[in-house]
């Protein structure tokens, strides 16, 4: 099955003018196609770009598609100009992001207890950069805010969906059950929170 060349041509134009990730759903309405058909057309187009080793690529994230450059040409781009790039994430930010990515939706308390240190600053920075967002409230006491990753998170790390996150290596022969681990962490987390007003300076 091959998508209509007319549609693929139009998609190229749309991706170009739009610049940002373009939702398959929006395009599906435009072309009067189903969303899966639209996604299929996008993927076919992306495949053609790769096949002819184009200097452009179409990347997919969470049912959205974005036109971008082929990473191989970065040297030339750097020599022509210096594209504005965001600062790299700090170690603290990366740790928090890893926890949010795997445990989402997750509360700040859970993040703190896994890291053994307060994560307020890192969390704020990640929200400001739109890599994580609030995604509701936990049913637990105090109804703490739950955090989840965003589409920008997928884009920044080159994932198409959250399923692309690699499985974390299991701790092998470690015998304790999950339940046991969980309750332990929670209690230590609570101790840490109650003792600790200050927090370590952390920038994202």
């Amino acid at each position, binding site marked *: 099955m091959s998508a209509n060349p007319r549609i693929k041509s139009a998609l190229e134009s749309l991706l170009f003018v739009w*610049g940002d990730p373009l939702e398959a759903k929006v395009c599906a309405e435009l072309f009067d196609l189903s969303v899966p058909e639209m996604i299929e057309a996008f993927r076919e187009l992306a495949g053609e770009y790769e096949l002819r080793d184009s200097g452009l690529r179409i990347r997919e994230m969470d049912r959205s598609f974005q036109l971008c450059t082929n990473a191989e040409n970065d040297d030339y781009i750097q020599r022509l100009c210096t594209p504005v790039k965001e600062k790299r994430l700090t170690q603290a930010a990366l740790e928090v992001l*890893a926890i949010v990515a795997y445990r989402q939706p997750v509360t700040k308390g859970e993040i703190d207890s896994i890291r*053994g240190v307060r994560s307020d600053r890192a969390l704020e920075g990640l929200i400001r950069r739109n890599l994580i967002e609030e995604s509701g409230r936990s049913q637990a006491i105090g109804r703490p805010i739950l955090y989840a990753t965003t589409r920008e998170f997928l884009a920044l790390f*080159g994932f198409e969906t959250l399923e692309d996150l690699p499985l*974390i290596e299991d*701790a092998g022969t470690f015998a304790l059950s999950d339940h*046991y681990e969980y309750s332990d962490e929670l209690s230590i987390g609570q101790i840490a929170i109650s003792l600790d007003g200050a927090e370590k300076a952390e920038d994202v």
Partner: protein
Amino acid sequence: MAYKVKLDMFEGPFDLLVYLIEHARMSIYDIRVSEITAQYLETIRSMSAPDIAAAQEFMVLAAVLIELKSKMLLPGSDEEGVPEGEEDPRAELVAQLIEYKRFKEMAAFLAEQEDATAHIHTKPQEDLSCYEGPEEESLRADSDQFVRAFRAFLFRRQKLEEIRHTYERVERQRMSIEHKIGQIRDFFAKATRVRFSELIARKNDRYDVVLTFVSVLELIKQAAVKVRQPKPFGDIEITLIDDQVNQS
């Protein structure tokens, strides 16, 4: 100690502990608590004063380590320091360290991914203002709007309610049109002809006059009576149509 570490190298107490354990070539599953506690405390002691203020989490873990150490020194422990017949007191900490390490590895993976995608560039959106043509129509609504509109309606309705008391009086009057017709029919039980003025109970009650008049009109409409007014503005004669009596 053979090495010097600065606390701000570490993301937190677990980070420091993992570093010390790995540096001492211990198995994370079999921490030599005595040794690692000493190293941990030594590192914290070497911190400068402002560090201590900023890093209370390190102190919390120090307390945990000291407690662990004391448990493992209790009599009845086996040669490894594990009390007999009990769960290894290190288990909790080990579980936490392993989980922390897992996410630390993930963070490293994310950093690699970030490096890889740093070579990919996107472009800003084109200036699309030239495409802003005639707008398309689409129905837009949300539940808030729905509730707001309904509330506004209820409020307006409440105010109408007050005004509507007037209507309610008219309602009652209408109800009593039936009542009045009943009264008129009672008259006809005694005579087949009656004058309008006789039907009015209280002469000064405009309401009663109007009510009676409307009732008579209703009876005319029902073809129950015939009316006659001998002279303009004179009294009206109302005559019962016979078969109506038989029916009622």
